[in-house]
């Protein structure tokens, strides 16, 4: 947040420059005689008297607040307007923002109640979904990184696996759900399996690319130092590829969070995806809109956690 403000300040400073340029012209005339004198006696030239209009801090802050709060707020209001228009003109099944807000207050008032296996607070729904995402994601990382390493390190492994990866990567993960249900005969493992399939491709592809991108020079350094295989892996291969691996992990985690909602709609059970489907069956549209907002927020949190991890481990960003 602080960083953003700082950046927008810079932009403002630039945008103020143009009017100041106009004032340089008279200043140049004043400097002319000073320069000639300098040619004769080589005196240090008098510091040029640029005069910029003073930039008031209050004005900078006003612009910063406009950028950070007022502009996004305006778009938000616009969306609210469209929403109310839909409610008024198209279908009143879409609840008003006010009604939705009231529902949100109700839902978040008791996020962790348990009234039976099919009736739990929204907090539990999110946690169950997150649990499945984390299980599938962890498996994908555990399998994807070694496979990616092998593909990056060996041309033959790369040749052998690349076509398969290319074919499977663009497949919608949900297409795997029936296979999962057949093989595992249970909902939870199937959902986890779908997340695994979702997450593994970016991890494999980015890890392999990271290993391939290691400069030969680093490996030559290792050879001159006679580092053993384990030392090369620990001191060179892993640190050099970590930025790529983390990029792959960040990509797959955000997709995994999108996919779990869809997967749970099909598998049922406790989870934010099935919650949305359940509320649709109850025609409880306000709850669905609240859930959409919550899914988005959780997505942002996951993304920023991965960003933090990336900043911590990536030598380029430290």
């Amino acid at each position, binding site marked *: 947040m602080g960083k953003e403000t700082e950046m927008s300040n810079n932009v403002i400073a630039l945008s103020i420059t143009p009017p100041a340029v106009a004032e340089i012209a008279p200043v140049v005339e004043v400097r002319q005689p000073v320069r000639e004198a300098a040619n004769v006696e080589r005196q240090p030239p008098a510091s040029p008297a640029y005069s910029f209009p003073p930039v008031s801090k209050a004005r900078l802050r006003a612009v910063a607040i406009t950028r950070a709060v007022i502009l996004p707020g305006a778009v938000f209001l616009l969306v609210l307007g469209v929403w109310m228009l839909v409610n008024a003109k198209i279908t009143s099944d879409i609840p008003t923002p006010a009604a939705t807000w009231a529902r949100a207050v109700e839902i978040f008032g008791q996020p962790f109640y348990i009234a039976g296996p099919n009736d739990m607070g929204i907090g539990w729904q999110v946690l169950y979904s997150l649990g499945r995402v984390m299980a599938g994601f962890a498996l994908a990382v555990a399998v994807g990184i070694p496979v990616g390493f092998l593909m990056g390190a060996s041309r033959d492994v790369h040749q052998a696996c690349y076509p398969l990866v290319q074919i499977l990567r663009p497949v919608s993960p949900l297409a795997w759900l029936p296979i999962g249900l057949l093989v595992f005969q249970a909902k939870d493992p199937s959902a986890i399996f779908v997340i695994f399939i979702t997450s593994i491709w970016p991890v494999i592809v980015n890890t392999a690319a990271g290993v391939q991108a290691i*400069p030969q*020079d*680093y490996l*030559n*350094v290792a*050879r*001159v*130092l*006679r*580092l053993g295989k384990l030392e090369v892996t620990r*001191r*060179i291969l892993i*640190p*050099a590829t970590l930025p790529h691996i983390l990029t792959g992990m960040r990509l797959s985690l955000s997709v995994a969070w999108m996919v779990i909602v869809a997967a749970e709609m099909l598998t049922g059970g406790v989870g934010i995806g099935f919650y949305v489907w359940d509320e649709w069956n109850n025609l409880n549209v306000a709850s669905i809109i609240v859930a959409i907002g919550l899914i988005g927020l959780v997505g942002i949190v996951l993304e920023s956690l991965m960003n933090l991890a990336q900043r911590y481990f990536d*030598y*380029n960003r*430290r």
Partner: protein
Amino acid sequence: MSYLNISNVDVAFPTANGAYIALREVHLEIEQGEFIAIIGHSGCGKSTVLNVVAGLLEATRGGVLLENKEVNSPGPDRAVVFQNHSLLPWLTVYENVRIAVDKVFGKSKSKAERHDWTLHNLQLVHMEHAMDKRPGEISGGMKQRVGIARALAMQPKVLLMDEPFGALDALTRAHLQESVMEIQTALNNTVLMITHDVDEAVLLSDRIVMMTNGPAATVGEILRVDLPRPRNRLELADDPTYNHYRAEVLRFLYERQRRPEAA
């Protein structure tokens, strides 16, 4: 027998059209404490010679003897200063040198001694002030200094430098050349340096090995540079002997080994 003996080395690479012979019968004997520059047009195989000595590349025929022992794999007794420094970007300046010190002296020196030795080598290249910085935070010349410190810290029998200053601007290059001369005078290292800079070769070396153009490049001429040390760039600029050596190298490169496509 000389200290470092590059003995009738051939290097050939297999290609679709049969073997490509990069080096043929490269023979060079180097004494301990000598500073040798290998100069030649780009693509003539200078770096190939260095890689064979480093053990990074295997000679197809012939071989390299260091103190009468054949070398055929890389090792810290032949430390390399790479052209583009090749510091590990995730380690600090200190750690980049320390990794070499730990590897070479892990058994023979205590932890405190290894720390001191790391600092000592950073001081040699005047980089101790930046020891906690990462390579991304320092200039190209500074990175190359650290690369030299890392190589020196291995206490190599031969210091191999592969166009060490090629990527630097002229002023930084001059500065680093002075540093290398200073260090070489102090430590009496045996140095094999690849260069394409005539002034650098004459200023730094005891002998200049001039290579013919490839393919099948070989040693064309060897010029002994009998200039007293310490050498001073400014004084030498007007020194007739210096300019004579310079002209010799230029003549070799631009008259006798002029690149056909450059003509």
